[in-house]
């Protein structure tokens, strides 16, 4: 019995942790390529969740296919935002932040107008649950965990093993040198931005069958993903992975044993890491 109480939060935390990794990867990708801390990142997560709600929940398209389609939709919205709003101010810290805040408001309010203010739920794709060491865990969560792990694996392969991924790494290390080596910074930048938004959208789509969907759900996710990349080290993929798992698991235990005060956790992480070890666990020098 006591084992169950300790194991249940671990499994739930692992699942949400793996999904957090995807969102944080998107945020850290955009930050390291474009030097933009995209404060509208959570809104792309929300858009991904609503896309799945409509595609899979209401139009009954196959869930995996719908997940791909929603990633494409969110990526296109991301490309539009980058071209129109971020491009004119790129490279400047305060203006990019302000554009991000503006986009956050616009997208959230537009979503409230289009999708309504009520939280929406969608039917579970996989009914039923598995029992593992006396712990009951729903199949939706297991599938969400598996899809997330696969996606993180694909991202890892993409960044470290493909040519485009290496171009992204090069830009993250040194923009100008990368440009001198013949990398088209502009093209890789927009691809990276689109990919970052698509990852946020994918995470939204993965979480959609488990949680309620609501137009204001972006801000929580944004804060969590900022905490993750700061904990892991800004710009580091292994760092985002560790940060995501740590936050997911600790948060899950926190909500089980402490309750409401556990929502302080991401903020405490941000403050403590930036004060004590600003490079994060795996980060380079700032």
């Amino acid at each position: 019995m006591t084992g169950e109480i300790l194991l249940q939060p671990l499994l739930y935390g692992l699942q949400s942790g793996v999904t957090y990794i995807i969102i944080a990867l998107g945020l850290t990708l955009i930050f390291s390529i474009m030097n933009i801390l995209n404060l509208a990142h959570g809104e792309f997560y929300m858009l991904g969740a609503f896309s799945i709600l409509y595609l899979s929940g209401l139009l009954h398209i196959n869930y995996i296919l719908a997940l791909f389609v929603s990633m494409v939709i969110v990526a296109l919205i991301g490309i539009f935002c980058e071209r129109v709003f971020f491009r004119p101010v790129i490279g400047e810290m305060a203006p990019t932040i302000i554009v991000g805040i503006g986009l956050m408001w616009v997208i959230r309010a537009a979503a409230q107008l289009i999708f309504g203010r009520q939280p929406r739920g969608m039917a579970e794709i996989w009914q039923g649950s598995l029992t593992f060491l006396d712990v009951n865990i729903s199949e939706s969560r297991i599938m969400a965990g598996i899809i997330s792990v696969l996606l993180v694996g694909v991202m890892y392969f993409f960044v470290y093993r493909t040519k485009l991924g290496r171009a992204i790494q090069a830009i993250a290390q040194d923009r100008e040198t990368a440009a001198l080596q013949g990398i088209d910074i502009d093209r890789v930048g927009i691809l990276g931005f689109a990919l970052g938004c698509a990852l946020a959208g994918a995470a939204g789509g993965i979480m959609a069958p488990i949680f309620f969907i609501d137009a204001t759900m972006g801000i929580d996710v944004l804060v969590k993903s900022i905490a993750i990349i700061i904990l892991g080290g800004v710009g580091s993929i292994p760092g985002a992975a560790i940060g995501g798992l740590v936050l997911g698991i600790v948060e899950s235990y926190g909500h089980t044993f402490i309750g409401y005060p556990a929502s302080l956790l991401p903020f405490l992480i941000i403050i403590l890491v930036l004060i004590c070890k600003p490079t994060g666990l795996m980060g380079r020098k700032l």
Partner: protein
Amino acid sequence: MKRSSYFAVASYIVLLVILGLIPILVDNQYYLGIITSILIDILLAVSLWFIITTGQVTLGHAAFASIGAYISAALVSVYGQSSLIGLLAAIAIAAIVATIIGYITLRITGIYFLVVTLAFGEIVRIFFGMVEHPFGGLNGLMNLPAPDPIPLPGLGAIDFVSKRSLYYPIMIFTFLSAVIIHRLYRSQIGTVHRGISQADNLAEHVGINIMAYKLKAFVLGSMFSGLAGVLYTYVNKSILVSSFTLEQSTIYLLYVVVGGEANIAGPIIGAIILNIVSVILRPIQAFEPIIYGLLLIAAVVFFRGGILSLVQNARYHVLSLIRDSHLTK
């Protein structure tokens, strides 16, 4: 006293007279209420602007307003202290918290400072939501009393029950705070602030203790934010967990950015114009964040420097037109 100082004093007096006449000219209670809350927003915008002139953009400004509001409200309504003690304690505690937070976080710059202050603001919000006694937990504190009447010897007392009588203390607090900030910015301190925000390395190398200036500006700005929080409880008679959130902090930033950062008129103009926009948009309130968001983006993408720069450009064009017409004559 320099000639420019006489000019400044004269314009302060003119401004004070105009502000003092507003409740007499505006008969409508609804509009007077709006003007009063615009004054509080001006105080918040101006104090945020003063911090931003040192180059530190904070997203935790509303947190200090909520500290001020909660401390004052709890002392007055839960512990039965006088309004004056509530006000002073609120400002003092805002100053203490700002000193501690500023001392720890101001060495962080740029985007990381923004993220740290964002986190601090959210921690404050969650903290007040957690503490049932004396801050009322998630329900906040309701039905707060109006500020204590001020006794006048031989003439009875001034009470602050009606909207019109409440306007004056808020106007005076906002006016005095704005004048203090304006005087500081026009002094050598303002010059140093500009130096720090433009080239902090250079400022440090010519022997300016930039940490000290940043900390002083942060503490002072946060104290005024705390004061604004206290004034908010006088007007709204309640303080809720949702009164001062991250959303509010971003709105104050919007005032500064849309108004312009070049001088103190920017945040004031920004607060006034955006509040008027918000009143006009009230029938279609759902669209308000969309328009605010687009304005915010437009302010950095299309008219950099805010409304102030538009005004300055227009003045430049008018002046050059006049000069040209003079030349052709």
